[in-house]
């Protein structure tokens, strides 16, 4: 060994020492990056450190520092120059705070981040409902504060919760195991995809401290060109999360395409995997549109380009935004369909009905979702030639969406249904999304939209699809896969209490909102006329009960994760592959090649026992594959 190599080893280990606290290093490097970018820009272009030019440059370097600091340095830069891939991925709980390539760790990182974001954005909604209890209240510092709250709530919920919760959480955790793979196709890309998410969420949360923004999650210009400096952080946050979504979409597609276990045909894929496939196609194809639109908004702000100001084309932004935005709402809901249809056969102890209709429906929704965006723009004065065609596609997309109900009802009818907590949330999903879907038929009608657009009718409609739908499915998935992920059981009684509390409070909150819209309550207002006070008082009261319902699972599931009873490998006697391996699964998932069976064949399968025995007798197969 020459001296030279000794020195490099010593330097390498010094790096390793610093990387023992990668999260700290990421924070330090991000802060340093921000200061560097902002200082240089402030010195060269503008005078102040927190001008929007400085914030953009600072954020770009902060993001770079953050990604390199958390492990990107060792994972990408060092190997690029010929070094070895040497990331300390940690063990035990420390794995969750590091750059970790295990898809199961990444899944839990995504899930916990999305749930934390859900609680933050939900708390903001509670503040909004306090403001709306009476006209004339002022809980935020002025109506600008309320608009900031609306913007934060929507942006955090759509980009930080709904878009990443199921796809990032269960897409990562479950899909590779369901197809019999050891990991995702690109584990390092997967690890880095996650670490973009907290930075994006932090960008949104930091915006109020930089003058805020008040144009909502849709950020329509010209308002978004003229409002507070926080708008650029909202743009950067969406771009950050968008990079993550595109990367994870590519990864999921490559995984399902290449890593299916031998003998697992596309025609046998679990429906949840199918839902991830169509979602990923939409993510890869359409997230770039919102990136484009928002970059142009940022350029209007800092470079005076006037793409979307009154000297440009304000409506062009809306087209770009909704070309992304309407596929996006299917990016949010298709994973929910996937979870619900995956769980119904397990808890009905009955074959999934209409598998081909489901997959065909998913593919049709995926394609048709690209053709409906103008229904967000009926009242903008767009060409009359665009009205009837988009009304047609929008109404017609309920046909393939209805296949989800065809399959659900066909599966449940005559099934040996057990009302476990995950099953209750699936049934709650079917009820809520039914209301969300049917009211969509109303909003698709051009003439009705001239009355309903921008009212609480729309607010109620999309909360029924996203919260009553996607969030209920997310929670169903959490209870269902909780034993697999934690190796422990939750308390069934508390789970059911959670369902009934949330389901009743949810409907009590959002059902009256339809009527508020009919009566003339428009959306995104801090104040309203006195005649709307009674209905708003009711909605606020119900919303507080709904908000309180989240405390129960937060405490209960945290406790169960640490202290819950030990779970068996297959407490639900389910047939998909994740239940054939231990709970929690070993790092490489499968010790022996998985056996591919008909995942939905419950003919003559044993009844679902509840509670499931946590320690099955040795030698008894627990997989339900026999």
């Amino acid at each position, binding site marked *: 060994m020459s001296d030279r190599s000794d020195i490099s080893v010593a330097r390498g280990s010094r790096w390793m020492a610093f990387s023992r606290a990668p999260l700290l290093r990421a924070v330090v490097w991000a802060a340093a990056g921000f200061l560097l970018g902002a200082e240089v820009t402030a010195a060269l272009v503008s005078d102040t450190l927190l001008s929007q030019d400085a914030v953009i440059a600072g954020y770009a370097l902060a993001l770079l520092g953050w990604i390199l600091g958390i492990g990107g340095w060792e994972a990408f830069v060092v190997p690029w120059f010929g070094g070895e891939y040497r990331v300390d991925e940690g063990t035990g709980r420390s794995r969750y705070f590091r750059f970790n390539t295990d898809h199961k760790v990444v899944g839990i990182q995504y899930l916990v981040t999305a749930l934390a974001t859900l609680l933050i954005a939900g708390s903001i909604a509670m503040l909004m409902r306090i403001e709306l209890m009476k006209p004339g209240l002022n809980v935020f510092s002025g109506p600008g504060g309320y608009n900031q709250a609306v913007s934060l709530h929507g942006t955090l919920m759509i980009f930080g919760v709904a878009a990443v919760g199921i796809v990032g959480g269960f897409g990562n955790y479950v899909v590779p195991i369901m197809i019999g793979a050891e990991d995702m196709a690109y584990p390092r890309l997967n690890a880095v995809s996650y670490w973009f998410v907290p930075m994006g969420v932090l960008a949104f949360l930091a915006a109020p401290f930089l003058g805020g923004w008040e144009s909502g999650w849709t950020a329509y210009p010209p308002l978004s060109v003229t409002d507070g400096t926080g708008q650029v952080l909202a743009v950067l946050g969406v771009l950050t999360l968008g990079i993550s979504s595109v990367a994870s979409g590519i990864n999921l597609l490559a995984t399902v395409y290449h890593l299916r276990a031998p003998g697992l045909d596309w025609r046998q894929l679990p429906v949840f995997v199918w839902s991830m496939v169509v979602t990923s196609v939409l993510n890869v194809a359409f997230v770039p549109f919102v990136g484009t639109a928002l970059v142009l908004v940022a350029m209007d702000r800092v470079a005076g380009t006037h793409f979307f100001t009154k000297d440009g084309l304000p409506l062009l932004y809306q087209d770009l935004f909704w070309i992304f935005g309407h596929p996006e709402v299917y990016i949010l809901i298709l994973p929910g369909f996937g979870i619900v249809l995956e769980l119904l056969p397990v808890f009905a102890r*009955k074959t999934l009905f209409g598998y081909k209709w489901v997959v065909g429906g998913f593919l049709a929704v995926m394609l048709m979702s690209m053709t409906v965006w103008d229904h967000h723009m009926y009242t903008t004065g767009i060409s009359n030639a665009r009205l*009837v065609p988009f*009304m047609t596609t929008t109404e017609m997309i*309920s046909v393939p969406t209805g296949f989800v109900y065809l399959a659900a009802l066909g599966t*449940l009818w005559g099934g040996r249904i057990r009302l476990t907590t995950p099953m209750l949330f699936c*049934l709650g999903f079917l009820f809520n999304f039914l209301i969300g879907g049917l009211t969509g038929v109303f909003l698709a009608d051009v003439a*009705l939209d001239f009355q309903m657009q921008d009212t609480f009718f729309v607010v109620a409609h999309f909360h029924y699809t996203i919260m009553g739908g996607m969030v209920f499915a997310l929670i169903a998935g959490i209870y269902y896969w909780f034993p697999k992920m934690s190796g422990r059981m939750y308390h069934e009684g508390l789970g059911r209490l959670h369902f009934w509390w949330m389901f009743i409070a949810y409907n009590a909150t959002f059902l009256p909102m339809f009527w508020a819209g009919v009566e003339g309550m428009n959306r995104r207002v801090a104040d309203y006329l006195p005649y709307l006070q009674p209905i708003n008082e009711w909605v606020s009261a119900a919303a507080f009960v709904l908000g309180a319902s989240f405390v129960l699972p937060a405490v209960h599931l945290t406790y169960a994760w640490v202290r819950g009873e030990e779970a068996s490998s297959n407490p639900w006697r389910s047939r998909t592959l994740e239940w054939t391996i231990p709970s929690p699964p070993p790092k490489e998932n499968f010790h022996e090649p998985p056996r591919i069976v008909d995942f939905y064949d419950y003919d003559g399968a044993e009844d679902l026992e509840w509670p499931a025995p946590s320690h099955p007798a040795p030698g008894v197969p627990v997989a339900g594959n026999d």
Partner: protein
Amino acid sequence: MRGRTLYPVLAGAAWVVLTVLAEAGVNGLVAHFPVVASSQGQLIDDTFALLLRVTAPVFTFVVVALAVSIASAGEARRLAAAGEVRYARDNRFFSWTWFAVSFILNAYFVFGPGVHDVNAIVLGPDQPRPTDLVVQVEAHQWGWDFIYPSLGVKSQTLVLPVHREIRFDVTSKDVIHSFWIPAFRMKIDAVPGRINHITVTTTRVISTRDDPTARVQCAELCGIGHPNMRAAVQVLPPDAFDAWVTQQKAQQGP
């Protein structure tokens, strides 16, 4: 085997009963719709009511199917325990009927009330008809200006004659706003750099003082003043309207 016939019959009966109740509920809702003060608004309310009536049986069908499935789970368990079961993976009749019904319903929504209303409400003539009263609406952060070019009047409240076709030419001086009058059931965005049109036929004498849904309300988030970006509306009998015009002219000068 009892359940094989019992539960479908039960489900059918429950569906009929629930649908009747739901339709009664729809009638109750329709009776409580807010006051409508334009012929376009009446059409929109009629379509709203029609869609409620048609979707009510769909809603009750799914709810009954879910409820009866849950209620018959014990029976299903007994059947399965008694002998071999072979669960259907598809049912051609059920699935294709479902497909056909949902296709026909949605096609009806489009080519029935959908296209009819677009023709009746949205697709006005490009140019105002000579009998129309033209009102230019200018939105700004945060307020409304109403200009009556043919009458030489400018106002901050929207005063209109009853039983007239009113053509609104709507634009904005700054950001995007939306010109909405809930009692007319009509809105159109005020977009800077362009003029959007809607035509409304007033059908009843109404004013903001008596009915708060008769107001101009900005419906598109436009900044701090958005919630209170309202203007009063008065729909007057023709002679009262003429009197208002004369009075305004006298106040505003030549």
